């Protein structure tokens, strides 16, 4: 026969080890997988890719309102674009860099026009 203290200690030890194992499994082996997420839930690298594509699409169709709406899915369009240009995790293609800078200028001009009461 074991003393109750020993038994309780062994149960506690099992509990702690089980808890650690459960947390490890839950985070690393079978982590929660989100589905039906929005662009703002993407990994930062993929967000950067998204922003690059929006800039290139703007270079294609010159639709500023559309580009703005697409960027707004990640937050403030100007901030999002500035962040990409400043800290892009992947190197820009020359077209992508030019498109992003071009879009940023257009967004700033549009924003300035709106704040000064001009036509949008």
């Amino acid at each position: 026969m074991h003393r109750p203290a020993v038994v309780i200690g062994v149960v506690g030890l099992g509990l702690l080890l089980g808890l650690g194992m459960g947390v490890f499994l839950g985070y690393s082996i079978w982590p929660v997988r989100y589905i039906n997420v929005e662009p703002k839930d993407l990994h930062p690298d993929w967000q950067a890719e998204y922003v690059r594509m929006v800039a290139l699409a703007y270079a294609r169709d010159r639709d500023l309102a559309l580009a703005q709406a697409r960027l707004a899915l990640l937050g403030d369009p100007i901030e999002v674009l500035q962040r990409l240009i400043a800290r892009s995790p992947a190197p820009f293609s020359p077209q992508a860099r030019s498109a992003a800078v071009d879009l940023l200028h257009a967004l700033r001009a549009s924003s300035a026009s709106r704040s000064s009461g001009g036509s949008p």
Partner: protein
Amino acid sequence: MRGRLGIAFLAGFFPGLIAGVYLAWEVFPPSPGWSSPIELASPYQELWIVLAAQADAVERDPEALRRRLEALGMPDLPDRVAALAERGLLENWPSGIVQDLARVAQQVGARSPALVVILATPVPTRVPPSPTWIATPTPSLTSMPSPTATPTPLPSLTPTPTDALSPTPFSVGIETPTLTPTPSVPHRIERQMLCEASPLLRIRVFGPDGEERSGVRVWVSGPRGTEMLLTGLKPGMGEGYADVQMETQQTYRFGIEGLESALAEVIARPCRRPDGQTGWTGWEISVRLAD
């Protein structure tokens, strides 16, 4: 006893394991900010494809295109891209986007007649937003007697092959083949009124040689605005066929892209079907393109 200690250990271990998993999944789940495009909701995945196609049109980087599209993890990617291009066409998206999608669909291995048609179609000029006049004076539209089962053909200017129109069960009248009203619209138009439960405006485009012509963009202006149709996209209905559902008592105008004027105007009016039930006038309009 060692066995009893083992049982005591397991008695603590399994509840701990369950509690740990519960904590990781339910109480403190990781933030969703580390998702990949494969986990995007379906509309955002479609947006991703559109963006990838548009970006590729500028960048022309097959490697970047492949990386972006593969991130979606779609086993049926070529079909999805092709379907998106066709949807864009039917929903009248900007033609540049539709063509970018069609090009990418072909690049990733999709094959369909619609893609060939889309890519062969030059980027169109803008459709007139609301045609303001009717090309043909159509007295029969306003003074149309209540439809009867007996067709009363008016004298026609030129004999017209009746097999140009597909047979329909509730045909109640055939209108005169109408010559085009102005020299600038040199197309020949025939209209056939049908009485049906759910009115449809059917358009059939023929070339000058009398053969049905696919890939012709026609616009239809109705109560919901102007939409663009492309002939030949309905399997089994013929190369020159396109249709649009009509709303009852509403006026629809239609024309060929590039023409300023409408070729015809029709309305879905109440009519009596041969079985005695009330129906609505649908239309089948055949257009024979001039040289």
